[in-house]
């Protein structure tokens, strides 16, 4: 029996081209006749355009064209997640502003020139006159009467009001009872805006072919088919003549899901000029106009008995959406957020009311975790607060409320059915990893010595592997969430697997090759995973929401099994045996009992392709297609523990130790899984300790460059300690769940609560993130002045 490739940490197939620079990211493309486009953007957060004078720009050296919002004939930029039963308002979003600009960065004109320097020179010559209007930035404030209106047709700036509840009567009764004879804890939480900051800025190269009337758009997208769908609507080019290619893409984290005005404008310009048009944002532009993440103001509360049994959770969320609805924007603080208020706990009464608010800021959409970091944070915050109020150990309180182990379905009160979970096993493993009791003893010692040592624990369950298409429809997602795969075996046995997902760093060129190799014994080196090009791949919905492995991977497995069964039937025919008598092992088919007389998968493929002698009823060739619509989402889970030291002199939080136990089911490639968790932990730590978008009251972005927005760097972290449990997903052909976002979902509350734990002797109950040194220092000083330890 050969060593199983599934479960092996083999080196990645992607790496040889990446470590040598022999690949093409979108900005790398050069084409004959290509010109460069620059977008002229509003410097005001809210203003009426009174005039635009493009004459100087048009006359500038190298300039090919200058167009304003009045010239552009693109359709509007659509929102593709129309949350139902929410009184949803979807204000118009033109590709270029016509009369009103609504956020700093809103595009007002495009300049096309022979090179990027000359295009920028000319853009600086476009004279725009504005009548500045008042702006509103905070999502809660924007709902108040008298606040400036971002859109005239969105009263109180409220785009939607969405409610999910297990039953309001039960929720109200539980809180009433807890107020009377139990305990209620409340919190106001600000989930600060974040900048996804994929290292590759967004870019598009649009190429209109005037002879074939076909449009090709190379773009930094996580979902080429969705981009094609939307760009077709905006440009009028029918889908069968529109090709979208995601070449090498340098990270996304959700920020490359949406279809933005920019790629549509590049396409439109190319159609007008009949030459390729390239647009690439600068990092400053990226920070202004590429979607932001999070931006909630939340009022949350939890009810429990005096013994610490949680009876209810309720939240009111003001979710900032920005100046325009982004492609998936409304779904993030609703479906992907409120439905996870149970977390890993048994909570019989749950309610989430989410108010989507327009503000004069950049649009908000999915950013790693997309709604679940916010949900996990608030659940864990309330649990921590409950523990403090009841004077219980926070781990003991969690253990008491964890959903008991289940292999095949657990219905949470809000309506979801989690697939599988064993939260207590993960908890025990994590506690043992760090010697939790030992850490608490260390903490007592530290406190006695006047040092501020803190321990934070998070138990999480999260929803990913988007998702059942019926559910997609029910929750207003304007697309399906199934996947498809086509597996082709060439005459000499080389495999191409074409998929509709679109990985951009997650490693599926390796892991899917491992899956296929494991199923049919073809060497990994003979398997090519083809993705990212709507001309080369079947329909799919892209890579986000940790869906590539659960959904696209399932399509790949099932298609491969079809290949295997056809090969088995061909081998049976070649061996002159009955199909039922054929066994398979490691790429070889043989009559049971005679393993030395075998036909390989390559033999079967060649003969099926030549078709000189096929069994009756068999088609020639060796190709299989499979659609897969997942029956449920996937629910990975785990426990993270952080140990911090807080320096009272500087307020600096030092992350001393970070341990993570995560369960994503069986791991195809444990090294790749660990890499996803490392990266996720660091992004979540960024939110807890350093990152945060700041707009001033006029809507000016103050954190507009990497000098002002504090990105995590290598010297800020210890080595992370990782372990895992394996609880397969009952509904997946190989039991796998997603894992890409779990690190981020778990690490923000883990680190945050470690800091609060460190500051417990000072009586500090709450701090807003990020827990920067000035903020921590000030809180400590204020607490000491009030008489803390």
């Amino acid at each position, binding site marked *: 029996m050969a060593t199983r490739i599934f479960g092996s*940490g083999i*080196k*990645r197939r*992607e*790496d*040889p*081209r*990446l*470590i*040598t*620079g*022999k*690949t*093409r*990211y979108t*900005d*790398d493309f*050069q084409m004959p006749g290509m010109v460069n486009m620059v977008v002229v953007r509003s410097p005001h957060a809210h203003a009426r355009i009174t005039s635009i004078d493009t004459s100087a720009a048009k006359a500038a050296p190298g300039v090919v064209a200058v167009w304003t919002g009045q010239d552009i004939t693109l359709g509007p930029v659509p929102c593709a997640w129309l949350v139902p039963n929410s009184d949803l308002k979807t204000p118009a979003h033109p590709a270029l502003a016509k009369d009103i600009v609504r956020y700093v960065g809103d595009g007002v004109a495009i300049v096309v020139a022979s*090179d*990027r*320097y000359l295009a920028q020179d000319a853009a600086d010559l476009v004279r725009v006159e504005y009548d500045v209007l008042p702006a509103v930035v905070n999502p809660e404030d924007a709902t108040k009467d008298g606040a400036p209106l971002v859109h005239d047709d969105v009263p109180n700036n409220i785009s939607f009001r969405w409610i999910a509840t297990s039953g309001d009567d039960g929720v109200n009764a539980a809180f009433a009872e807890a107020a009377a004879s139990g305990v209620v804890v409340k919190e106001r939480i600000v989930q600060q805006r974040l900048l996804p*900051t*994929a*290292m*590759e*800025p967004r870019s598009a190269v649009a190429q209109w072919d005037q002879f074939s009337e076909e449009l090709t758009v190379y773009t930094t997208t996580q979902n080429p088919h969705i981009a094609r769908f939307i760009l077709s609507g905006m440009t009028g080019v029918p889908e069968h003549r529109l090709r979208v290619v995601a070449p*090498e*893409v*340098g*990270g996304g*984290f959700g920020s490359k899901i949406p279809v933005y005005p920019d790629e549509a404008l590049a396409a439109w310009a190319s159609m007008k000029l009949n030459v390729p048009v390239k647009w690439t944002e*600068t*990092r*400053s532009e990226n920070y202004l106009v590429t979607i932001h993440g999070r931006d909630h103001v939340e009022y949350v509360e939890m009810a429990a008995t005096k013994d610490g049994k949680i009876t209810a959770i309720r939240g009111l969320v003001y979710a900032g959406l920005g100046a325009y609805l982004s492609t998936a924007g409304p779904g993030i603080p609703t479906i992907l957020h409120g439905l996870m208020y149970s977390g890993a706990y048994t909570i019989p009464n749950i309610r989430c009311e989410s108010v989507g608010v327009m503000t004069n800021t950049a649009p908000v959409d999915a950013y790693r975790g997309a709604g679940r970091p916010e949900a996990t944070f608030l659940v864990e915050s309330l649990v921590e607060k409950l523990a403090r109020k009841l004077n219980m150990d926070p781990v003991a309180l969690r253990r008491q409320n964890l959903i008991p182990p289940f292999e095949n379905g657990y219905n949470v009160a809000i309506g979801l059915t989690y697939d599988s979970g064993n939260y207590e096993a993960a908890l025990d493993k994590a506690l043992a990893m760090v010697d939790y009791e030992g850490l608490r003893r260390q903490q007592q010692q530290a406190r006695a010595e006047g040092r501020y040592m803190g321990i934070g624990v998070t138990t999480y369950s999260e929803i990913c592997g988007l998702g059942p298409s019926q559910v997609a429809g029910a929750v207003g997602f304007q697309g399906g969430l199934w996947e498809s795969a086509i597996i082709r075996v060439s005459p000499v046995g080389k495999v191409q697997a074409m998929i509709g997902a679109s990985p*951009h*760093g*997650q*490693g599926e060129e390796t892991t899917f090759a491992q899956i296929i190799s494991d199923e049919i014994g073809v060497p990994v080196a003979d398997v090519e995973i083809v993705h990212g090009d709507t001309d080369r791949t079947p329909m799919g919905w892209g890579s986000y929401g940790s869906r590539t492995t659960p959904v696209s991977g399932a399509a790949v497995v099932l298609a491969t099994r079809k290949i295997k069964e056809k090969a088995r039937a061909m081998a049976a025919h070649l061996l002159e045996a009955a199909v039922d008598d054929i066994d398979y092992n490691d790429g070889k088919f043989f009559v049971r009992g005679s393993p030395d007389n075998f036909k390989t998968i390559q033999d079967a493929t060649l003969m099926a392709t030549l078709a000189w002698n096929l069994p009756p009823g068999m088609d020639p060739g060796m190709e299989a297609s499979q659609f897969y619509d997942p029956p449920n989402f996937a629910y990975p889970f785990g426990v993270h523990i952080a140990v911090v030291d807080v320096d009272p002199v500087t307020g600096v939080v030092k992350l001393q130790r970070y341990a993570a136990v995560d369960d994503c089911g069986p791991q195809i490639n444990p*090294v*790749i899984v*660990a*890499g*996803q*968790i*490392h*990266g*996720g932990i*660091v*992004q979540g730590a960024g939110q807890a300790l350093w990152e945060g978008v700041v707009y001033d009251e006029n809507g000016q972005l103050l954190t507009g*460059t*990497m*000098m002002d927005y504090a*990105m995590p*760097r*290598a*010297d800020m*972290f210890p*080595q*992370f300690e990782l372990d895992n449990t394996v609880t397969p997903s009952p509904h997946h052909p190989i039991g796998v769940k997603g894992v890409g976002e779990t*690190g981020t979902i778990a690490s923000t509350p883990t680190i945050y609560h470690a800091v609060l734990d460190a500051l417990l002797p000072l009586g500090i109950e709450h701090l807003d993130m990020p827990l920067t040194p000035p903020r921590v220092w000030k809180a400590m000083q204020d607490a000491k002045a009030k008489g803390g330890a």
Partner: protein
Amino acid sequence: MNITVTVNGKRYERDVEPRMLLVHFLREELGLTGTNIGCDTSQCGACTVHLDGRSVKSCTCFAVQADGREVTTIEGMAQGDQLHPMQTAFWEKHGLQCGFCTPGMIMASTAFLKTNPHPTEEEIRHGIEGNMCRCTGYQNIVAAIKSASEHM
């Protein structure tokens, strides 16, 4: 302005505007697109190359400053099919995911090891604080550099 720059051992003579950044010269004038641009304030390090053997951020350097000098980019690190030990280490230790920061990381870390051939983990982490990565969380990058230091 006429400049002569040797890049990865090959001599190039070009006429460029004084304001052209070295990174644009490499990427667009010479077609060496391995070097990437990740920011506009010299923070991220994706554009790191070697100029006369020392690491520089090519976004903060004019092409004319490279006149008469030698530049090494990621394309010049492997010798034919033979990968540089740092490239091998990044591959073996899964020190990359999307790959966008990787050329800059490899250039910066090879220059760093010249100044500190046997660094501790902490020294490595400080040594690459001028290079940002959003995907890996740095842990495997540090492991790669440690491994390379043992093979160089």
